[in-house]
């Protein structure tokens, strides 16, 4: 009987509260054997599904009647609900990409950013301090430095202002990523007097031809250098 009462939970709560005891009485009055149990389980599953469907149809009929009586209110509710769903989707999408998804690098939980932290504020590292930290640190497997900047790309169609990043040779090795074509930076690129080397993003590379001579300009000083 306990198992039958558990099976009754498949029915909607209202139906179970109304007729559950009587159904238990009916079940108790029958001779219980394996065949009855099989028949009972099939009966409960099919009738419970039908009972839920009946409830759903009643609710849909009632909702349709309400909408017909007040179409303006219904439209307002739909619009507001749609705005809410849209806003929630946008927020959760951003949260997912920024906070939840791991960084798209191997071993992202081992990547850390470090700053100098004088009392009261945080500041980026000076190059000499970076070199000292890299030499003296025993806590990190590798260290690289980077800072963001912007550059003018001229010589390939309209001049374009592109965001860029200056970095030491270690950064891409640290991140464990390789370029689609060509090579990433090596220690030779870090050496004093080494030619300026640029790694283009896929989007920029799509826009310009490798044969086109271009100028990279930073702020107000113009420099011309071949792309390497």
């Amino acid at each position, binding site marked *: 009987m306990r198992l039958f009462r558990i099976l009754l939970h498949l029915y909607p709560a209202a139906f179970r509260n109304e007729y559950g005891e*009587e*159904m238990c009485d009916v*079940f108790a009055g029958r001779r219980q054997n394996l065949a009855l149990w099989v028949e009972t389980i099939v009966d409960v599953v099919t*009738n419970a599904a039908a*009972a839920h469907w*009946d409830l759903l149809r009643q609710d849909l009929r009632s909702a349709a009647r309400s909408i017909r009586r007040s179409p303006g209110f219904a439209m307002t509710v739909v619009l507001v609900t749609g705005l809410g769903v849209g806003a929630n989707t946008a927020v959760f999408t951003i949260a997912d990409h920024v906070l939840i998804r791991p960084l798209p690098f191997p071993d992202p939980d081992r990547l850390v950013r470090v700053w100098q932290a004088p009392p009261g504020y945080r500041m980026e590292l000076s190059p000499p301090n970076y070199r000292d930290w890299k030499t003296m640190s025993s806590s990190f497997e590798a260290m690289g430095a980077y800072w963001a900047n912007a550059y003018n790309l001229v010589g390939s169609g309209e001049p374009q202002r592109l965001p860029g990043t200056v970095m030491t040779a270690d950064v891409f090795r640290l991140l464990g990523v390789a370029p689609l074509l060509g090579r990433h930076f090596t220690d030779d690129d870090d050496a004093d007097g080494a030619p300026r080397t640029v790694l283009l993003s896929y989007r920029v590379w799509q826009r310009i031809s490798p044969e086109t001579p271009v100028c990279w300009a930073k702020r107000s000083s113009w420099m011309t250098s071949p792309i390497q």
Partner: protein
Amino acid sequence: MFMVENADALLPLPPVTFHILLALADEDRHGYAIIQDVAMRTGGELKLSAGTLYRSIQRMLEQGLIVETRERPAPELDDERRRYYRITPFGETVARAEARRLTRLVRLARASGFATGRA
């Protein structure tokens, strides 16, 4: 609860509904007694399960074909846990309409030679 005013709107009746109305035609019964009566009338061919019975009862209550009655039979026959159901005048009207419909069908079947007896 939704009430149907026109008996013909409920036709054709599901067979289980018709059998329950037949079981209640003579007297008020509780659920288990309805199951037993239907089984006896049909010679064991139709054995209602509890789920089928009470889903039908729920629908028939909503349609106004039956009501739950507060009157109890004689104490020695009564089980206070059980609820008794009674056919309503509307339920009788619907049962008669269904019986007429089935009679017409049988007549047609006889006329076509699918059933024995006079058309």
